[in-house]
């Protein structure tokens, strides 16, 4: 029975449980729901939950455990010299799986009977040709050990499928019978159902934590793998980044960090003044109607996908900077440059800084402004000498968040900054960032055993730690500031 069919069976049983439990409890009070502890519907839902919970839980567990058990037993049965002769465990196992899958196809298309598939041997037939005839391509000839392992695999999988079906149906039936048995007029069905729903809600809210755990776990294990193959000092302190597949790659992170920080700096030089002045104007000077139009318009920038900014950098900004600044000034002839990426990220961050600062400026108490204006200060003096100092911690927090976004930005730098890892001060030269290299090392054909690929995880981990630290600092600053006025 396939999993889908099994799910349908469980769903049908769950539906039956709803009807049965509801009928039974209504019968117990001769159709007068006022005598029940809960509304009749709750008794039905209780039945449904009692069917679904154990059955689905059992099924999921079985699906997780079965491959591990089967592969463990197959691996134990394989002759030990296979590992030594032909590569790693994973390769042999994937061979076994492919042959077993091929036999399945052969049986289902009728090229082989089930009997043949179970007993066929490498002496009597050429497995590779037989399977090729039904459309399963194998890389190499099938060794006898792999074939017999594949046959064992098929047998065990068949048993596993049977066991899975029996277990799931039994659990569902058991749940159904139990639910019907405990259903009576005094049974507190609503409490039971609500507890189950609450459990579901808690599980949903834990997914956020699981995601973080997943991120940290996946990056940490691969990063450790990387450092097992590549020295720690070479990664953090080397000044060259030149991966190659001859085995003498130099994977120093410093040029990438330099590129990242340089681009971030330029982007901040663009976004902080523009964003801040825009926020000040909107919060302090603009009339209500101007504000109602301009604020959403600026926020449109934030809604545009970054790949659009990337294309803008690649097609428009890059060539423009090259033709009007870099080449006439003799600073380089590259379309993609630190300046290009920095400018465009700066534009991207304007709405971020302006709307955060706008909120912060608005939350400065009016009494401070009134006091300053009452002493005869002009509006700009009030803003510069009273409002901004009061809002400063919040604005610094917003800037740090913007910096963390600029550091983690990917598409704009991939399309606008270039791919050469360099330590240079010239902003019109192409440089590269951590995110560009993560994309570069992880797209295309990748070998997850090579340090050249694994380094991407170490870069990702570094990126994660940096952005997280910046955000936490920003959050702390903003929080501290809030306490002053609330």
């Amino acid at each position, binding site marked *: 029975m396939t999993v889908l069919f099994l799910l349908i069976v469980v769903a049908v049983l769950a539906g039956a449980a709803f009807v049965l439990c509801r009928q039974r409890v209504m019968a117990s009070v001769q159709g007068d729901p006022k005598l029940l502890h809960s509304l009749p519907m709750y008794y039905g839902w209780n039945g449904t939950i009692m069917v679904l919970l154990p059955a689905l839980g059992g099924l999921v567990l079985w699906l997780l455990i079965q491959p591990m058990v089967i592969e463990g037993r197959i691996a134990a049965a394989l002759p030990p010299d296979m590992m030594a002769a032909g590569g790693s465990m994973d390769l042999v196992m994937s061979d076994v799986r492919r042959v077993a899958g091929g036999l399945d196809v052969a049986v289902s298309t009728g090229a082989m009977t089930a009997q043949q598939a179970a007993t066929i041997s490498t002496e009597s037939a050429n497995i590779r040709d037989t399977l090729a005839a039904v459309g399963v391509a194998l890389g190499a000839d099938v060794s006898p050990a792999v074939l017999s392992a594949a046959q064992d695999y098929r047998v065990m999988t068949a048993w596993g499928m049977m066991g899975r079906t029996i277990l799931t149906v039994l659990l569902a039936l058991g749940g159904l019978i139990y639910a019907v048995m405990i259903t009576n007029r005094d049974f507190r069905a609503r409490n039971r159902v609500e507890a189950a*729903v609450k459990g579901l809600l808690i599980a949903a809210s834990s997914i*956020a934590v699981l995601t973080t755990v997943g991120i940290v776990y996946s990056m940490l294990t691969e990063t450790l793998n990387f450092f097992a193959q590549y020295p720690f000092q070479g990664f953090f302190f080397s000044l060259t980044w030149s991966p190659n597949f001859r085995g003498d790659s130099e994977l120093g992170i410093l040029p990438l960090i330099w590129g990242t920080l340089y681009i971030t700096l330029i982007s901040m030089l663009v976004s902080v003044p523009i964003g801040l002045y*825009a926020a000040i104007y909107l919060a302090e000077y603009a009339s209500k109607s101007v504000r109602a139009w301009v604020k959403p318009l600026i926020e449109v920038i934030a809604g545009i*996908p970054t790949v659009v900014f990337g294309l803008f950098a690649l097609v428009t900004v890059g060539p423009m900077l090259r033709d009007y600044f870099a080449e006439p000034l003799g600073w380089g002839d590259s379309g993609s440059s630190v300046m290009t990426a920095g400018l465009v990220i700066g534009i991207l961050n304007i709405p971020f800084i302006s709307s955060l600062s706008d909120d912060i400026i608005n939350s400065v108490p009016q009494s401070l402004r009134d006091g300053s204006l009452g002493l005869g200060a002009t509006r*700009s003096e009030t803003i510069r000498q009273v409002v901004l100092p009061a809002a400063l911690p919040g604005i610094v927090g917003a800037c740090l968040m913007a910096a963390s976004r600029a550091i983690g930005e990917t598409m704009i730098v991939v399309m606008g900054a270039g791919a050469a890892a360099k330590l240079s001060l010239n902003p019109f030269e192409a440089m590269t960032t951590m995110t560009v290299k993560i994309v570069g090392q992880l*797209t295309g054909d990748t070998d997850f055993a090579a340090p050249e690929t694994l380094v991407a995880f170490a870069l990702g981990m570094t990126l994660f730690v940096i952005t997280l630290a910046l955000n936490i600092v920003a959050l702390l600053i903003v929080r501290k500031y809030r306490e002053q006025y609330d």
Partner: protein
Amino acid sequence: MTDATSGGLSAAAQPKSSLLQPSRLMKKRNAAETRFKAYGIAAIVLSLATLGFMLVTIFSDGVSSFFQAKLSFPVELTARTLDPKGNRDRADMVKITTLGYNKVLAVAFEKELAARGIAIEGQSAKDVVEMISKDAAGSLRATVLANPSLVGSTLDATVLATGRIDGYLKGRVTMQTAERDSNVTPAQLQLADKLREAGMLTSSFNWGFLTMPDASDQRPEAAGLGVAILGSAYMMLLVLVTCVPVGVAASIYLEEFAPKNFWTDAIEVNISNLAAVPSIVFGILGLAIFINFAGMPNSSTLVGALVLSLMTLPTIIIATRSAIKAVPPSIRDAALGIGASKMQSVFHHVLPLAMPGILTGTILGLASALGETAPLLLIGMVAFVDNYPAAPMEGFLDPATALPVQVYGWAQRADPAFIERSSGAIIVLLVFLVAMNVLAILLRRRFERRW
């Protein structure tokens, strides 16, 4: 007393000034005020002008991708070439590759040119035939194989012209660039002019751009967004069914039930941190967990959707929580007061009232997921895919690509015709995004409730 006299003395010592006559200091201060205000206006004008400039350049680059140069001429589907056995049997005709159809097209094209009296000056017949897209033979073959009885008849075919001819009609390719271009000659462009006068070469709306799959480097004229739009649609559907229930459930718990304890705090901190994690980190997560560990297929929409879901989850949770928070406590108190359980008050009263806010937040979250590119690159969606994914369920495991990834993919190609396509893809993407945002705004306007 002494203060007053000393004040009076110093006032008398100062030069006379009047409120009506601004002093030099006051003038300076007022000028500073004006400047300060001007900086603010300049900042706003600058950012809006940049936004406008960006959109204008992209639209002016991209609009032309919705139009495509096509050649129309009658094609005689000669039975001798296309069905050598003469039995009109599809199984036999499949053996004829596009090479055979190329020959048929070439013969028909030259014949039509001769019939119309259009002279081929100083060009080989090969050059002339190369004005037809390399995609034409394939599509003609598909037409014929779908309907074998066409063989022997004459078909009024409309086929794509090559990207360079298309670019000439759009002004991207000129005589000057053609001289330096190995893919097109000025003579071909002159011939294109004559064909246009004769009405054989026309530019018409390019439906293929929205429906056809991606095409190889040599055939920019045949590249379309079909697979990308389908892939994006699949992912949005999956994000909707995985992310929204989880996000809403999590928000309900955190807002209505969660006790103040360590676990709740951990969840809260986590959610706000996840919202700030760079999107590419989610791509690494997807690659490591979903593809390498769980063994899900590379570049499938399922993996893409899972990654985007995890990324969108914080957005949806934050929006939902503020929508739930906006429902006044009096509603809950009233429900509890007439005997509802806590769960009933939430599901029967609070949630329906918070629904418009949740919907708005969901649409905005989906819009940001639709535009996300970086994590999808890492799970292999940038690969060249020219097969449509199958219908849902199995189709979720098929390789596909997404709109923003297609934008990136085309921008990486060498032929400038792909930059036009890339901008065109952005227009399509922005149309979807604008539609979603307008929907969100309308929902908010329609259902917004002031308590």
